[in-house]
Each structure stands twice: as C-alpha cells, then as structure tokens.
C-alpha cells in the first residue's frame, strides 16, 4: 500500500519547451477550500446583525483574537498585516480540517502548497523590512553583530523558510499517513481477534474516527495557528 503517493499529470503546451506537471487532487481541494471560504465570507456579510448569532460570534471571536495579537506584535502598523495573517490562518485551518471527509486529502499534505505559502511569507517579510527600515539599514542588519556573521544570518533566513513550510507539511503528511493506516490495521487486528462482523464493529470505526479527529482537527488547528503566528513573528522581527 503506497499511502504517500501523489497523483500527478504531466502535459506539454505546443510551442513551449517546458513540461508542465500538476497535481489535480491538490488543485481541486485548494479551489474547494477557497470557494468555501469565499461563500463563508458572503454568508457572514449577509447575516451579520447588531445582536450576533452563533456563527457571527465565532467569527468575531477569531477576528478579535487576531486583532489583539497583531496589535501586540506590530503596534501601530497592525492594520497592514492583520488581513494577511488572518487569511493565512483561515486558509490553512480549513485545508487541514478538510481531510476528515473520507477520500479527501488535505492540500497541505502536498509539499507544493506549503512551500508556496512559506515562500510567499518569506517575500512579504523581506519586502516589508526593506520598506520599513530602508535598504541600507536592511543590509546592515545582516552584518550584525559583526562582519563574519553574514553567512550565518543568510543561512538562518533560508532555514526559516524551510522549517516554516516543512513544519506544516510534515505534520499534515504524517497525520494523513496515520489516518490512512489506522483503519486497515484495526480491521486486520480485528480479523485476527475474530471480532464478529469486523467491518461494522463499533470499535474499529471508533478508532478511525479518533485518529481523524486528533490528527485532522486538533493537530490541524494547532499547526494552522502556529503557521499564522510564526508568519506574524517573522514579520515583526524583521521590521525591528
């Protein structure tokens, strides 16, 4: 059983010397996540009232939490980066939790999504640092505390991208493998123990559900929070 395989489709366009490669699963689930978030936004706008309902309260709580967080980290400039950080959180949390639907792999268990998000944060961090401090101060920051630390600082910045994106990828990838393995293993062990009607016995189903709940929802929400907060922290540190 090859649980780690990602189906890819390769094709060429006439007149171009490149070979294009897309992962249709990841692409489709990413667009579904984007559409779901878009619909949620429209829905919230339609139903928002002065006296909030349940959904509006939940969304307002998340937004208020991130507003406080951005104010603590960035001070006056929180309005510039609050939309980015909250969008990152919402996108990553929905794409992590979508793997509880059977047969759907979360797009974050594909390295391309995570590396894309990580590179986006990297570019934003450095552009915002240059615009806030000026180019000269930004370059001077790399020679701190003294000249020989330049390669160390550069490697540290590159390592941030790798650890930031691989953290999300590693957690969701490992979680996906465990979710895919728990069901068959429980099924086989139940067969060895001669449980009657093993495919519908409650304990096997319960084990799969617990694995999905833990690795899909719990770890998914924590990793999404960590991803957004680390992006915010990198931005705040680079602007100092």
């Amino acid at each position, binding site marked *: 059983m090859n649980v*780690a395989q990602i189906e890819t489709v390769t094709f060429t366009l006439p007149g171009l010397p490149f070979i294009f490669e897309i992962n249709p699963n990841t692409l489709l689930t990413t667009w579904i996540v984007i559409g779901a978030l878009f619909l949620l936004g429209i829905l919230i706008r339609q139903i928002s009232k002065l006296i909030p309902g349940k959904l509006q309260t939940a969304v307002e709580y998340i937004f208020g939490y991130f507003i406080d967080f951005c104010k603590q980290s960035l001070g006056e400039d929180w309005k510039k980066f609050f939309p980015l950080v909250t969008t990152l959180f919402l996108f990553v949390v929905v794409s992590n939790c979508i793997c509880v639907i059977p047969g759907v792999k979360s797009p974050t268990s594909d390295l391309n999504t995570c590396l894309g998000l990580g590179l986006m944060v990297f570019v934003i961090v450095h552009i915002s640092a240059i615009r806030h401090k000026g180019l000269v101060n930004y370059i001077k920051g790399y020679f701190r505390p003294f000249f020989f630390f330049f390669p160390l600082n550069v490697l540290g910045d590159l390592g941030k991208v*790798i650890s930031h994106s*691989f953290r999300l990828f590693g957690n969701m990838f490992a979680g996906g493998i465990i979710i895919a393995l728990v069901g068959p293993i429980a099924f086989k062990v139940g067969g060895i123990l001669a449980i009657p009607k093993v495919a519908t016995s409650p304990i096997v189903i319960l084990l799969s559900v617990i694995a999905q709940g833990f690795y899909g929802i719990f770890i998914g929400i924590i990793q999404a929070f960590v991803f957004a907060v680390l992006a915010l922290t990198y931005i705040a540190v680079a602007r100092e």
Partner: protein
Amino acid sequence: MVPIDGTIIIRAAALLGAGLCMGLGAIGPGIGEGFVGGKACEGIARQPELQGPITRTMLIADAIAESTGIYSLVIALLLIFVVS
C-alpha cells in the same frame, strides 16, 4: 529469494538511515518541548491569570524547538523517496 545486488543494499541502507534519522532526531525536540511545556505549567500554576499569553508563547517556543525534528524529517523523506 531475491538476488542481492548493489541497488538493494543501497535501498536497505537508505531505509535504515531514514529510520535512524527520525528516531535520533526526535530526541532533541522531545526534550525541548517537554521542557517548554513543564515550565509553562509552572508559570500558569504561579500566575493563573496569565494563562492566555503563556500558552501562546509556549506554542511559539514549541514550534521553534521542533525545527531540528523537522530537518531530520526532511532528510528522512529525501532518503525514502529520492535515494531508495
């Protein structure tokens, strides 16, 4: 019985190396995260009203302590999917 040649030995060594890499690489982050969690518990026990900020800082520190584990995961994935 499969005849043993060079490629099979390389594959076996890569898979063995991936297992060793994950196992040894998980020691450091385990110790670090346990330390962070324990200290956070002490802090919350001393000042329960600061639970929110302490938990937030603990999560970030956990994520940073995890980095070396993530690097060993990268190496293990390279060994499994690229080398072997």
